[in-house]
């Protein structure tokens, strides 16, 4: 049996990624937390093999094919991609570890508030015989970003350790670094500038093109994974509401509820007869509807107006649609690639 092999990020990522998988219904078992290998259970096709690695190494592992899938930061994927790699971004937005790669300048550059200003300052420095030095751990993204904005006269500085400290230490003039709250930038007396977001990032799922193309069993396991991920992500901030409501018929209840507004749910409410303890109480119906969390109180109010009571609300854990759209998209991409490959060999 071929097991699906998946790389998960360790170090600072571990808690977030295990929580995410747990919410998707996937459990990672390992004998002790220092173990690099583990089993992930919860897929219908059987357990998957898991290796823990640094987020930055996961791109290479998936690219090299020693694992089929990996979870890592989109910023890392964007930085390491080439037009000849084996990487497919299977799911670009897993919804956690959000951050941005931004260009930041010293607070003291009060004249610089946009990238256009920065381009001018680069010219000014160049005229004065100084090349603007940019400290970053993302040389490819940074270079391309600056090129695309008409800046070519700069130097990328490799810094080991804290990027944000480079301007204060005078090893660089500006930085291009990851930030989520902006606190670290402020603490280092740096400021982000308008139009200076290089890439918005969050955790993403990547896969090895060849691996997924050549092994139907692993592809099927991937489908199971994506079903759970899609259904979990779709379910977030959704609640399922059930209420008891009096009426002459399901149709009459539905009319009243719809008229009171805001109770549409994913498709519309489900209304079913309640079989009462007290036979004289036989005009009760139960109404079920799934709504967004932020619409909870308005919906309860609307239901009350329609005569409802005993409203219960429970968080929804999964919303399975007709099919996993992410997997459909993956299949289309793989088919496209397979066709292109065939064309290349017959040409």
């Amino acid at each position, binding site marked *: 049996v071929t097991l699906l092999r998946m790389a998960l990020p360790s170090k600072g990522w571990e808690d977030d990624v295990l929580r995410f998988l747990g919410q998707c219904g996937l459990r990672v078992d390992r004998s002790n937390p220092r173990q690099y290998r583990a089993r992930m259970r919860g897929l219908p096709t059987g357990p998957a093999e898991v290796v823990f690695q640094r987020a930055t190494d996961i791109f290479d592992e998936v690219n090299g094919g020693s694992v089929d899938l990996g979870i890592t930061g989109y910023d890392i994927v964007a930085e390491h991609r080439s037009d000849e790699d084996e990487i497919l971004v299977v799911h670009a937005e897993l919804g956690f570890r959000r951050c941005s790669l931004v260009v930041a300048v010293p607070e003291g550059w*009060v004249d610089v508030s946009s990238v256009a200003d920065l381009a001018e300052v680069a010219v000014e420095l160049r005229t004065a015989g100084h090349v603007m030095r940019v400290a970053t751990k993302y040389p490819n993204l940074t270079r391309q970003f600056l090129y695309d*904005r008409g800046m070519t006269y700069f130097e990328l500085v490799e810094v080991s350790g804290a990027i944000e400290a480079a301007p204060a230490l*005078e090893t660089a003039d500006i930085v291009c670094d990851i930030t989520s709250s902006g606190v670290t930038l402020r603490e280092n007396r740096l400021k982000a500038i308008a139009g200076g977001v290089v890439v918005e990032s969050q955790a993403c799922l990547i896969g090895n093109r060849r691996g997924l193309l050549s092994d139907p069993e692993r592809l099927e396991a991937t489908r199971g994974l994506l079903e759970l991920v899609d259904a979990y992500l779709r379910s977030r901030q959704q609640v399922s509401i059930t209420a008891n409501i009096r009426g002459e018929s399901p149709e009459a209840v539905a009319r009243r509820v719809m008229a009171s507004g805001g109770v549409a749910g994913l498709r519309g409410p489900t209304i079913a007869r309640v079989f009462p303890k007290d036979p004289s109480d036989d005009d009760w119906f139960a109404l079920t509807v799934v709504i967004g969390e932020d619409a909870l109180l308005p919906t309860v109010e609307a239901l009350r107006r329609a005569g409802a009571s005993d409203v219960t609300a429970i968080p929804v854990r999964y919303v399975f649609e007709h099919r996993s759209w992410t997997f459909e998209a993956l299949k289309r991409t793989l088919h496209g690639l397979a066709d292109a490959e065939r064309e290349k060999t017959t040409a």
Partner: protein
Amino acid sequence: VTQLVDRPAAPVQRVRGTNDVLPPGDARLRGLESRLRDSFEGFGYQGIQTPILEPLELFLRKSGDEIVARMYAFSHWNRRLCLRPELTASVMRAFVDDLQGHGLPLRLHYAGPSFRYERPSRGRSRQFTQVGVELIGASGAAADAEVLHLACAGLEAVGIKRYRLVVGHLGAALQLLAQLGMTDHAQGLVLDQMEPIARGRIDPEAAVARVVNLLGGGTGGSTNGVATGEVVPDLPSALASLPTEQATAVAADILSRASLPVEGGARQPRQIIQRLLAKASRPDPTDQVRAAFDFVDELHAAAGSPERLERELRPVLHRRSLSSAPVEEVSAALGLLAAYGPLSSKAEVEVDLSLARGLRYYTGLVFEIYVDSADGPLQVCGGGRYDDLVRALGGREAVPASGFSYGLERVDLALGPSAEPSGRPRVLVVGVTAADHPAALAVARELRVGSLSVEQDVRLRGVKSALRYADRTGVDLVVIVGEREQTDNTAVLRDMRTRTEQHVPRGELAPRVVEALT
């Protein structure tokens, strides 16, 4: 139990966008290159070679953002290097390095691979071969005409007779940009967009928006964080009415009271504050940029046959009170070009003063040559005048120069499949047994005169196997030497094309082989 299997190693893929040039393509491209360079030598040009690997700085100086963004650049042991994206800057670096004392004009021709990281397509690879010339130390129409003529003559020499020469002059656009008072930075951004617009890669409105955005305009005034539409002027615009010295002092004082440290490593506080104030008093660049692109559009609309220079283009420049020198220079160069003798009857000449090349260093007349192909017009040649490059590369004095280069693979593509050369006639010499091999070697040596390509059987698997090889690979004649032939002092001459063979005396072998092949 792990079973060790002797699996073949995975094949190593070639780098995307690069090509292996296989036989007979290699012979064809080399032939093409040497015919082009021969035609340059006929005009007194001498060959030069420069390294493929160059310091990145060479191209940062003057090539323009469009090229720089497409370079293969990297650090190697802390040295910033790149693969050359073109050869002109390299040739001019070599000129500044070693040839400044040389008598001028200096005529150089070159050929070699160049590298650009672009989306590969038909006629566009990431590695391609430039073949071209530089005419260094001559300005004016006579020099421009020589370069134009050389570019056309080279193509005609290799058999391309149907082509379109488009001649332009950057002087028109450069004058207007200066008249509009645009900064060098802004001028560069506009010039960079001219080529993509002309090629339809970007819509003019989008180009305006892009340049304005890169210049930090289009937001309705100051970008200093004060919301637009507020009646209260922001600090910098309020200070702009004071003399510079006072304004700088006031600004510095306010910033220090707000305990904002105005310091920025390589930048002086004074510089920072002055730029802050200068920025506030600067007009929004949108109108300037739009005016520049409108002008480019007007120039393009007036483009066409050379008669339009006087009829259409001169008035366009006149209306804007720009000097008509570009019109006169193009006109004079085209006049002299005609004096070199007529171009091929299928050649067309067009003038278009909106023509801009992808490189920033051009200053005067520029041109491109197109050949029609199945996928639309194919640019096979481009060049022009670049009078500022020597200074930018550290030359002692300004030296005018012009030149052009062909894309060798594109010239080859333009020639089409009919260009396949017949190749040299091939002869194979075979010994009947391994013992006959030394005798066969002697026969081969006698035959290896003139342009014959004489192969030697080295696998020594006998005549039958050698004939099979000859059949499969298109050998014309096979000479067979065995024990009997050595005693008779003869050889068997087999014609693979007619499948006939005969005994030939050794003394007559060479002439008979030549005869059979002609």
